Every structure is written in C-alpha cells, then in structure tokens.
C-alpha cells in the first residue's frame, strides 16, 4: 500500500506520541496481552485450578485430546450452524428493516429509535425475557401459537434438544438485527438521489433499482458488518449460558461455551485454554480479513 508517509522522508523519532500512548499500552498489556500469553502457556500444561502445585508440561497434549473429544466436534458443528443461521438471518432482517426505514414517511424517526432497543439490552435480560416467553406453563409464545393454531399443545421450547437450539437462535436474531439495520441504513443514506432519478428516466423497475444501484452501493458496508458480526456471534456465549447453560444434554453447546464451562465448572484451565485458542485460530481468517479492511482507514 502506498501512503503519504511512504513518499515523504521517514518521520523523525519523536517521543511525544509514544508518551501519549503509554497509559493505554500499559493497561492493554496488563489485562489483555499478558492474559493471552498466559492462556498459551496454560494450554500447554495440565493446569487444574485446585492442584496449583502440580502443573505438568504436556506440550500439545491438550490439543491432541481435543481432536479426539466428541464434545469438541459437536460444539464446533453447533457453532458453525449457529453462526450461519444467526448472522444470516440477522442480516436479512436488518437489510429489510433498513430498506423500509430509508423511505420517507411520518413515523420514520420513531420507528428507527424503537427498532434499535434490543441492541441496548444486556444478554442476561435477553435470556430472561425469552426464557419467560418460552415458558412451558404460562409462556406467551405457547399461548399465541395455540390461538393461531400453529401448535396443538404447549411446547417445552427450551427443554427439548431440537427446539432449544433454534429457540436461542431466535432470541439472538432479535438481539442482533438492529445493528445490521442501522449500519445498512447509514450506508443507504450515502447513495445519491441522482442515481435513482437517472434509473427512473431509464424506466428501471424497483427490483432493478435494488439490484443494480442499491446493493452494489452498500456492498462494502454489508461486508464489513457481516465480518464484524460473525466475529461477535462466534465469540458470544452469555445468552446461551443464561438460557440453557448448554443443555439439555449438549444440545446447545458452542465452542466458546464449551471452553468457558471446562474452565469455570470443570476447573480444567489447561484444557479450557486449549479450546479457547482453537476458537481463536479458527476465527483468525475472519479477523484478518476484517482488520485489513478496517486498516484502510489508518492512512488517511
């Protein structure tokens, strides 16, 4: 990449910017970089919290164990389905919302504010309200579905392996689609009206306008939002933890949840660390693509 600073002589080594960066660097070093190095160290040891004096080095033993761990493969599979369903549907619903909000009508600014609300809520609340709505005995969803004849008897949504997974997916879609909606809306608002006027003169249909003007113009925004969201969803475990804790059985285990539970409930910090590193390695490609796109901003 050619930048302005490449063509100019190398900047003199002044201390000021480094001094300004020092506090942020120190905090980051203490709470992020050091812990990550620790995780790598722990992943190479058989580190169990209540046996602090007996931490044998086992090399890649934890990773070897992981390859033969059925729950790991199960969680990985769930994670892949989970990411594609949640991100994909969040995106489609977000895109539809953005296209609707990009038109002019009298309650537009109200609608925009209301749609954003799920984004502001903590995962514990998302878990709570959806668990309450999915309730078997007096839950509102069973009531609504019964009234509309979609089911003939109440369903224990979160207690059955098949429905539990998809019930959480719905809750996560609810939480995340406002992000797509507002991001894509911001992109839509940068498209110049002249493009649409020209298309009108050429007699383009509304579908053609969407296909040949709108979507190409926001392709960049969409790509960035998709990458960012994929990383977030892949890392997120708190809503699942709150709603089912991974159960029933292993039916709602995802990779980050498994890593967390191994360390938190199982006290197997070594193995949990190996799982966390595995997740990071698998995500690295997505992070790399995102960072390269975002880094284009650095040289302005």
């Amino acid at each position, binding site marked *: 990449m050619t930048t302005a600073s490449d063509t100019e002589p190398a900047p003199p*080594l002044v201390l000021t910017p480094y001094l300004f*960066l020092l506090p942020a660097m120190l905090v980051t070093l203490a709470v992020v970089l050091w812990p990550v190095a620790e995780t790598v160290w722990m992943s190479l040891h058989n580190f169990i919290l209540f046996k602090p004096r007996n931490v044998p080095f086992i090399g890649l033993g934890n990773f070897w164990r992981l390859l033969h761990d059925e729950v790991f493969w199960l969680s990985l599979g769930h994670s892949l389905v989970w990411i594609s369903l949640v991100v994909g549907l969040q995106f489609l619903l977000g895109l539809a919302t953005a296209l609707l909000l990009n038109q002019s009508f009298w309650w537009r600014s109200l609608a925009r504010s209301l749609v954003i609300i799920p984004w502001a809520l903590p995962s514990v609340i998302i878990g709570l*309200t959806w668990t309450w709505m999915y309730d078997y005995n007096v839950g509102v969803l069973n009531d609504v579905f019964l009234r509309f004849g979609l089911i003939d008897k109440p369903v224990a949504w979160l207690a059955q392996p098949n429905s539990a997974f998809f019930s959480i997916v719905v809750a996560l879609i609810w939480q995340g689609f406002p992000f797509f909606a507002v991001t894509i809306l*911001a992109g839509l608002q940068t498209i110049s009206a002249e493009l649409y006027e020209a298309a*009108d003169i050429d007699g383009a249909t509304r579908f053609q306008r969407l296909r040949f003007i709108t979507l190409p113009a926001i392709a960049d925004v969409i790509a960035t939002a998709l990458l960012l969201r994929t990383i977030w969803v892949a890392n997120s475990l708190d809503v699942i933890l709150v709603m089912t804790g991974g159960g029933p059985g292993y039916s709602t285990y995802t990779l*980050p949840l498994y890593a967390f539970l191994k360390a938190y409930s199982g006290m197997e910090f070594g193995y949990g660390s190996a799982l966390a590193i595995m997740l990071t390695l698998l995500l690295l490609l997505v992070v790399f693509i995102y960072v390269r796109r975002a*880094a284009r901003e650095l040289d302005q």
Partner: protein
Amino acid sequence: MMDRRSPLQRLFELHLPLLVIVLFALGPYVWMMMTSIKTNTDIGAWPVRYWPQAFTSEHYHALLERTSFGGNLVNSFIIATGACMLGLSVSLPAAYAFSRYRFRGRRLLMTQFLVINMFPIVLIIIPLFVLMRNIGLLDTFIGIILGHSTFAVPFSIWMLTSYMNAIPKDLDEAARIDGATTLEVLRLIILPVIMPGLVTTGIYIFVTSWNEYLFAMMLSGQNVRTVTVALQLFIGEFSVQWGLLTAAGTLIALPVTLLFLLVQKRLVSGLTSGAVKS
C-alpha cells in the same frame, strides 16, 4: 426520490411490514415490563391474561426491600462509571497520538488495538481470573473495572480516533502558531470540539459495562456483585417468581435503553465512519 405508489400500496409495502418489525423488536421488552407490574394471579393465569385486572408495584417493593438488588444497582453504577473514566482517560491521549502524529509503529499499534477487540472473551477471562486472584483483586471494584477495560480501551481508542480525524488539522496548527503547547492544543482546541464524541463513547462504554455479564461473574463475589450477576442468581433462586425477576430486568434495562436512545445517532455515525466513507 419520487414515490409513485398509491397509499394502499404504501400501506402494504411499507407501513405494515415495518410495524411488524417494530412489534417484534419491542414485544419482548414491553412484555417484560408488563409482567413486572402484574399481580401474581394475573401472571400465573392460563390462557395468558394480556391485559391484567389490576396493576401493582409489589414486585418492585419486594425486590428492593427483601433482596440486595438496591446494593447491586449501586455496584453496577460504580463499575460502569469507573470503566467509563478509565477507558476515556487512557484512550483520549492515545487517540490524539494516532490522529495527529505519524510515527514508527503507528500502523502496528492501531491494528493491535483493533485485533484485541476481536479476541474471544474466553481467551482472556480464564487467565485474568488467575491473575486477579494472585494479586488479590478478585471481588473488588478495581478488578472488575480493569476486566471491563479489556473492551472499553480498544473500543474508545477507535471511536475517538475516528472523531478526532474529523477535526481539521488547521485548527491545531493555528493554535501552535499562536504559541500553544501540545497539551494546550489538546485541552483548549481538541477537547471542546470532540466533547460530543467523547460523551457518546463514554455512554457506550457505560452501557456495555452495565450490561456485561461474564467478566462481572468471574471476577466478582459477595462484595461487588453487579445487577446482571445478581439477576442471573435470582433466576436460579426465585425460579418461578416472574414478577420479581421481570421487575429486576426492568430496573436494569430502563436506564441503559434511555441512554442508548440518547446517543444512538452519533454512535452509529462513529461506528460506521470507516465503513461508510464515500
């Protein structure tokens, strides 16, 4: 853009679908708040009683009088404020360096702050727990605030750099010609202009920290329990007392929703400034 659709067409293609989406977005939230002001009889009624026979504030009284929730609210407020202060105070100078200086390692350091924001929490939280335990910061305000700075610092640096880049450099230079020092430029020129961005970033950190669950759960115990951790414990403890649980949920959600609505426009423009540059 001209809209040649008839009012009926607009009703079916715009107003109704959007109304459905708004109801979907709002429904669970409103349902939680509604439940919190219903009596236990109305909550336990089947088929579901949508409009209750009477409204009550008993669950809020029970929550604040019989449980430690009031104290949890104070803890969360202290932690979120602390995370906000720590995040902004170390990020403001860092953002100034990134925006106004060209120096060796700039690109690497900026990328680093971007990448650590993408790290899975599980990668950091396990050793952070061990670290905090070893230096005796488990179950303290400082410990959780430091835990929250793992996301607050990188996020603020990116937001503030992006807001700062929008301030013309001529302003700094004019002040320098008048003899201002670097710190004076930062304090007298940049700070007033960036104030709205600073407030937006601060509120976002506050909301994220207030909402955060995993760090708060791992790093806290009896002393500094936050609202999210407390609510999760209540779910186990008062499993069928939905009135009490939704009252707690409402008290947690209401302030952050209002804060979020207050800054949402500027927040989105900051978050998307990289992606949506024409």
